[in-house]
């Protein structure tokens, strides 16, 4: 097959900025050239895989850190701003980001992330939590406890699942999908000690990373813990699932147990509503 299109031509072809004749030429070539066709296909797949990367949330505390750094820098500039400091009307801190696909559950996922921040601390504080139940006061206390050291803990995944979620579907997935298994294992190995290693940075409680949805979700773990068999406490959160449970939109916390590391439990809450009592719980066997 003579005259393979070069990268510039293939790039232009993929970008769609070739004229009709060039397009037909490239298409004709691809139809007869396996290596170029495979090249273009793999590039297309790579592009599609990028769609999986959502815009990340701002880490807790980064807004304050940036604001403080900018203020400090501004204070050293030769032309200090002298106008009276008006109370800033908080406008949209997060402007619309049209280029990112935004799943409906994104806000909830962000909130779950914030919820994930508090979890190792809840684990650490054992008895305090086991009596906490699911009330909002407990959630507020948890947030306060968590804010000094959120970074190591902020990696609790959220999985979206289409269709029914049951203990069986979770078990099958954990058995067949090594990556899901790895997510569970890495969560199980995340000890409270690991979470406290980064205490040197302090964050103010109302950091910009917090979502308005956070309070609804922060009490998932206390609520689950309150409902748990005492022998399994403290629970170790592994990940969240968003899916349907018996036909109802649900947020499901998946935990392992610190005293029983091989144990996996599902804690089912109404979607985005961890302050509600646990709807159901299932042990994954």
């Amino acid at each position: 097959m003579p005259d393979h299109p070069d990268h510039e031509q293939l790039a232009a072809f993929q970008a769609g900025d070739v004229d009709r004749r060039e397009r037909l030429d490239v298409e004709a070539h691809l139809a007869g050239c396996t290596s170029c066709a495979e090249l273009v296909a793999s590039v297309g797949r790579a592009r599609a895989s990028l769609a999986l990367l959502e815009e990340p949330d701002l880490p807790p505390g980064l807004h304050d850190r940036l604001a403080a750094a900018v203020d400090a820098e501004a204070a050293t500039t030769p032309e200090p701003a002298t106008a009276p400091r008006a109370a800033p009307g908080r406008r949209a801190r997060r402007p619309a980001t049209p280029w990112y696909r935004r799943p409906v559950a994104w806000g909830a996922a962000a909130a779950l992330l914030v919820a994930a921040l508090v979890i190792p601390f809840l684990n650490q504080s054992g008895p305090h939590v086991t009596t906490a139940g699911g009330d909002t006061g407990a959630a507020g206390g948890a947030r306060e406890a968590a804010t000094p050291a959120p970074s190591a803990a902020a990696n609790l995944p959220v999985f979206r699942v289409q269709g029914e979620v049951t203990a069986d579907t979770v078990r099958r997935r954990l058995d067949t999908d090594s990556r899901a298994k790895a997510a569970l294992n890495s969560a199980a190995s995340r000890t409270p000690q690991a979470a406290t290693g980064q205490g040197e940075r302090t964050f103010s409680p109302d950091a910009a990373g917090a979502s308005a949805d956070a309070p609804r979700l922060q009490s998932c773990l206390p609520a689950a813990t309150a409902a748990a068999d005492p022998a399994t406490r403290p629970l170790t959160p592994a990940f969240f699932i968003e899916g349907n449970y018996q036909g109802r939109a649900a947020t499901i916390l998946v935990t392992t147990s610190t005293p029983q590391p091989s144990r996996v439990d599902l804690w089912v809450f109404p979607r985005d509503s961890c302050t509600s009592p646990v709807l159901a719980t299932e042990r994954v066997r």
Partner: protein
Amino acid sequence: MSIPSDEALLAAHLRGDPRAFGELVARHERRIYGLCLRILGNREDAEDAAQEAFLAALRKASSFRRAAAFSTWLYRIAVNAATDQARRRGRARLAALDPEDAGLAVAPGSELGEAVATAVAVQAALTQVPEEFRVAVVLCDLYRVPYADAAQILEVPVGTVKSRVFRGRLALAEHLADPPDTEPARPSLRVAGPPGTDTRSPASESTESDHPRQE
């Protein structure tokens, strides 16, 4: 009440409005952090780079010219901050990757486990892509910056941007097909393709364009 444009806020800052620049930071911080995270592959470096980007923007504010959009100008500063950070830290590290750093891809319809795990794999593979290609892919494919704007940000011709994006995707495809943890001793990045393709090693990457022709 109308919301002032970025450019108007910058002008207000330059007139001495003490909160205008902070408003600009608040508007763009998430995007700039995300850009840095995708380029650098770990949160700690991304936070440092984002801070450096905004400080650099503050220092350079008076040099902003309306020839470009504020966001284009800021992206250029952020890309420079991120690549400087990468040089300070050596090769972008993979150690800090976790699902959250990967942006918690929660693609509708994905099955349990696959979405997040795949997003982590994508970010891991992206971090393996040579920097100048990676930056182009992040800008154009993830942040949907038009090629012409990316050319301004990267200060290279548009054709170079397209080529880098294409080659970045190609390298990404290779790393996705062949993740580093299954083949840790992989000696160099193979950018396979039709004749005319060159071979690059991640260690030899440079910010210089390998397409030195100018428009």
